[in-house]
């Protein structure tokens, strides 16, 4: 018994210009094997090097795509017609190609442990070489992400950052070294990646990601890895990824806990499906305020790099529709199921957010006041405090930081009441009229001053810039953290 196979225009050159050929076989797979045995030049266009049907080759049994039947095991009956139907696809790639991409002997040696695994192989390694990934941030998460992506041979790695390396970065941002302190993070990251793998292209973007530049910047990469440490940028990255149709490999860290997921894929949810609204400003402390275990971004960042590499190669089960939480203290991974929100403002079928917005405003962050007059009544400067102390005034200095911070450095003569304890320890402040309140940088103490004013301590003032400003401008001998 023979069945008819309909040959599409571009393949008729290999079947002696026949539009229909008759081939025998009990299943679609058998039939195609017999077809390519007769017309051997067809094989290379229908099958990839691993012997699987190419993704843009569609095989129909009568009117049904065999993907939705039993694939190549679909049985063929008498009178059935098999059609080979092309999907015609293309687009802008990470690099312009008119010559074939191959691996040099050095690259084969470098990636040999990848190449011998069937899940990666030559095909997967060439996909990595052709791929481009943008890391938002060259900090705690960006360090392992960029380093492992470079080591794995991702052909083009972009990094967005505008910060310089600080001593306080070094306990976790392992892409930078001690001699790099004071250098732009992009410079030291590029040096480290070039040393790790000179085969990959590193592109540095010395900008603060914004609604004005995000779409243009992200458009040039296949996958985005979010290593940001603040909500406005996180929402910005998410929305830009949804608008551009690019996967957003998400990770975040705080103290001993990390999170990871893959957002903004075709079928999966986005960050807004999980968190439609940002938390009120100041509610969730940053790592600078709350601290972070140095090794935590190592774990979360390598999870992000793993997911990015899986997405490029197209193997395994990605963290799509899944939200992973890692607890370093208990050494436990937990996983939640996520679902696309059918009413999501940005990724649903009827989105109301169709372009990038003002994310600072969205997250309730207002620009810091630059005029000192407007805050004169509630703010004190470090120079003013120094002058009062020198004058011998009995100004009361209230430190609202945590005890472990107090151990690192303190302003002489200050009294410690952590912000969280303040409401129930207000009686300790009875009789204190002139009061200067400080924390590390001035955020927590601003909340404390508001609380004190509400409680009747109307002359409490916030020390602008906190103890960091004190160290910078009054007593540089103190350690900075």
């Amino acid at each position, binding site marked *: 018994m023979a069945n008819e196979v309909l040959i*599409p*225009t*571009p*393949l008729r*050159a*290999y079947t002696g210009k026949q539009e229909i050929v008759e081939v025998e076989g009990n299943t679609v797979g058998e039939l195609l094997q017999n077809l390519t045995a007769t017309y051997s*030049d067809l094989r*290379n*266009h229908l099958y990839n090097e691993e012997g699987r049907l190419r*993704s*843009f080759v*569609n095989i*129909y049994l009568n009117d049904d*795509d065999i993907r939705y039947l039993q694939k190549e095991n679909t049985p063929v009956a008498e009178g059935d017609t098999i*059609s080979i*139907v*092309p*999907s*015609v*696809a*293309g*687009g*802008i*790639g*990470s*690099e*312009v*190609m*008119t*010559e*074939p*991409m191959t691996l040099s002997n050095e690259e084969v040696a470098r990636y040999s442990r990848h190449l011998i695994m069937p899940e990666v192989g030559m095909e997967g390694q060439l996909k990595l070489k*052709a791929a481009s990934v943008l890391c938002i941030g060259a900090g705690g998460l960006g360090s392992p992400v960029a380093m492992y992506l470079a080591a794995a041979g991702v052909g083009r790695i972009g990094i967005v950052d505008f910060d310089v390396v600080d001593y306080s970065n070094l306990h976790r941002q392992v892409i930078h070294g001690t001699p790099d302190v004071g250098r732009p993070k992009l410079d030291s990251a590029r040096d480290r990646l070039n040393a790790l793998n000179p085969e990959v292209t590193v592109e540095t973007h010395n900008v603060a990601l914004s609604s004005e530049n995000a779409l243009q910047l992200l*458009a040039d990469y296949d996958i985005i890895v979010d290593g940001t440490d603040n909500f406005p940028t996180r929402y910005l990255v998410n929305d830009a990824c949804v608008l*551009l*149709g*690019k996967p957003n490999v998400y990770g975040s860290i705080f103290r001993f806990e990390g999170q990871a997921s893959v957002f903004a894929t*075709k079928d999966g949810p986005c960050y807004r499906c999980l968190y439609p609204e940002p938390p009120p400003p100041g509610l969730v402390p940053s790592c600078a305020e709350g601290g972070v275990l140095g090794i935590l971004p190592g774990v979360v960042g390598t999870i992000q790099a793993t997911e990015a590499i899986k997405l490029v190669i197209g193997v395994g089960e990605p963290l799509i529709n899944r939200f992973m939480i890692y607890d370093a203290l208990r050494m436990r991974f937990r996983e939640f199921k996520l679902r696309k929100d059918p009413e999501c403002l940005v990724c649903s079928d009827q989105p109301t957010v169709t372009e990038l917005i003002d994310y600072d405003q969205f997250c309730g962050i207002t620009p810091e006041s630059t005029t000192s007059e407007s805050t004169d009544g509630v703010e004190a400067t470090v120079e003013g405090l120094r002058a009062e102390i020198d004058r011998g005034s009995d100004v009361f200095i209230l430190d609202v930081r945590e005890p472990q911070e107090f151990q690192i450095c303190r302003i002489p003569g200050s009294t410690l009441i952590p912000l969280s304890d303040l409401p129930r320890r207000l009686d300790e402040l009875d009789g204190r009229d002139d009061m200067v309140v400080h924390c590390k940088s001035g955020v927590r103490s601003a909340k404390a001053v508001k609380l004190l004013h509400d409680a009747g301590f109307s002359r409490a003032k916030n020390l602008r810039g906190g103890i960091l400003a004190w160290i910078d401008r009054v007593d540089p001998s103190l350690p900075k953290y």
Partner: protein
Amino acid sequence: MVSGHETVLIVSDDVAMHIQNHGREAYPNECCGALIGIDNVVGKCFSLPNTTEEGPRRRFLVNPHDYRAAERHATESGCTLIGFYHSHPDHPARPSRYDLDHAWPVFAYVIIAVEKGQPGAMTSWRLREDRSAFDEAQIERRNE
């Protein structure tokens, strides 16, 4: 050896203008369409929906249904399906790795660069027999 490997693709002004206009209208997304004619002469082209689900700013996809319709249309008008065109918004009119990975033999692949919404260079490419690369075909404009 496969016949029909002319290194020139002849395109009428109407066809060229259609491709340019489609590229402009679709910007910043990619557009795509079918080229119909005889041998290496494109007599007619028509727009097809870009059905990609991977982000139309960087991808195009002609689904099997539309492909079949294009082929049928060509046959019914006594022509053949010569190939397809697509645009590269804000990128050069040169095939990408992605184009190469997804290319079919024999077909002419016409690429129009669209820079900031304005149509620019138009090039034509054909996949090598061994799928290793594209060879460029010169586009010859011809008034009818």
